[in-house]
């Protein structure tokens, strides 16, 4: 288990694989618990009730290196990667722009590029993943039911790129 602390964003993890095996990886600052489930996914919580969010693999889904890195760091590894952004744009145009508009300014769904957000956790990659994967209210459906976690990270990276 690697514990990559991003510059300026030290993280603390507790890993619970299988039964009760746990590991604390150090540093001060934000902390979250990593549970068993999908190859050591962190403990995510729902943006609407803060309850646990169960991470399930889609049929045939594999944990990619990018997802694993995200589990370990809480950071979306695809941010700023041109190829990943192109893939994220393609997914965004298919699933997101109808509600959030091509430029992310929002219509049926809220703006993704403003300075204030309905869910404050949107500003962190972990929080944005929780919103996209687990869904929020109504039409912001849980995209974890249709997209792999790797695809979600690609979309997230593209969304981050929309804010100029």
């Amino acid at each position, binding site marked *: 288990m690697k514990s990559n602390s991003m510059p300026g964003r030290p993280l603390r993890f507790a890993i619970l694989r299988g039964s009760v095996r746990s590991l604390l990886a150090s540093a001060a600052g934000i902390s979250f618990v990593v549970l068993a489930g999908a190859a050591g996914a962190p403990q995510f919580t729902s943006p609407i009730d803060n309850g646990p969010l169960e991470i399930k693999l889609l049929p045939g889904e594999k944990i990619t290196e990018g997802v694993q890195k995200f589990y370990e760091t809480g950071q979306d590894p695809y941010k700023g990667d041109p190829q990943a952004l192109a893939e994220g744009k393609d997914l965004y145009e298919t699933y997101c722009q109808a509600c959030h508009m091509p430029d992310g300014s929002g219509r049926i769904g809220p703006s993704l590029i403003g300075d204030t957000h309905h869910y404050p956790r949107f500003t962190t990659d972990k929080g944005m993943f929780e919103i996209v994967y687990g869904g*929020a209210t109504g039409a912001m459906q849980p995209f974890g039911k249709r997209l792999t976690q790797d695809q979600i990270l690609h979309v997230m990276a593209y969304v981050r790129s929309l804010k100029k």
Partner: protein
Amino acid sequence: MRVMTAMAAVAAICFAVSTAGAQTVPKSRDEVAYPGGHLPGNPKVALVKIADGLHDPVGVASAFDGSGRIFVCERVGRVRIVTKDGKLLAKPFLDLTKINPLGNEVQTGFVEQGLWSIAFDPDFKKNGYFYVHYSSLPFNGAGVILRVTVDPNSPDVVSSEQVVKTAKIVMLIPQPYYNHNGGMIQFGPDGYLYISRGDGGWEGDPLNAGQDLHVLWGKLLRINVHVPDDSIPYLVPNDNPFAQAARNRLMFLFGVTEEAFSKIKMGAKPEIWAYGLRNPYQFHFDKKTGNLFIADVGQNSWENIFWQPHDSKGGENYGWSLNAGAHCFPITGPNTTCPQVGVLPIANYPHEQPYPDAPKEKTGFGCAVIGLGVANYAPLNGAYLAGDWCSGRLWGVGWDNAAKKWQLQELEQTQLQFTAGNVLEDGSVVAVNCYCFYTADQGPLANPVGALWRVVDASKVPAGAEVARTVK
């Protein structure tokens, strides 16, 4: 203990009476209910999952035949049965995707198209008739109301052969655009079939359908499907509001009052029960009182719930597209003024921005009202329930006899995209949700499966039940 029980019973009766008092249609805009109100008793409810595995469920109904079966419409053109113990039967009750060798009978190219609704004949146990309403592929998206007869030897599966053999097209309504089809069909307490049709689509009612009595779009229709001879598609009840006014007649220029002239509507569609509606996707009768609730999906500003008393004679004009409920159409700013046309809604709630560049609402907003049904059980005691497609809010609308006005209360905000609801034979209100898109529609079988939910008293959630996630 017995005394306490008796007192509680008396209190309960008094409470029920107090909530069921003399309801009235608002006479002025300030009598319309807005978010922030409280139903009598401030009820707490929960949505408990009955079944899932449903592809884009967009309609639900009971056969009221004592079987407890719940019939769920899947947009693609299938009706699925959920048994009274919550089991989803694998084989569809009805499958319109297979009856035509040339392809699906149902047009599903846009998310508002598909198989919207099923209703069972009031005499279903004897005649086996049920009716479905869908957008037809062979008829280029026209709305078809089809009657099919169940083979009593196969009560849970109507074979393709049985559909073809017994099918009777009751009504075919051409559709100019792919949206605002409306869609619900229900039998009223009078035994007539009521049909909600949207204004034909596009946006802004470009055909002026809501106010045009010569078209069936933008209306609630009422027909008699119990005909003496099946060569007759249906009959128009004589007491429909325009049944007599629509007749052609000899011209008289003199000896007729202006009031009498104003009531002549030659050429009007006699099937019309009410008009001035935009997209009344769901409507429900209160099975206890006979009152009618219509949830009319609005355009960019307000969502409306209309109400008719049980003794309505029909003919109500709900104002679209001269108004958007209690508001102007178009609404251009916070102080837009306009005359009020027709009958006001009893309740409304705004979109996030109820007029262009309005400050964004922080709470109590949505985008598409989906009526679910009247809950004649505690703690709702006659409240009409509605969900919002965008925001997942569950609303309750009820008459507050103490305040002598309607109240609109947000009961909870859920994770569900509500698509339809209805009242079952046990009286409970159920809802279905999809995981579908609007303009980015992926197709009726491409989305994650939706589910069927029951609205229950929050203090009586069965042990182990899955409850819809709500905002805390």
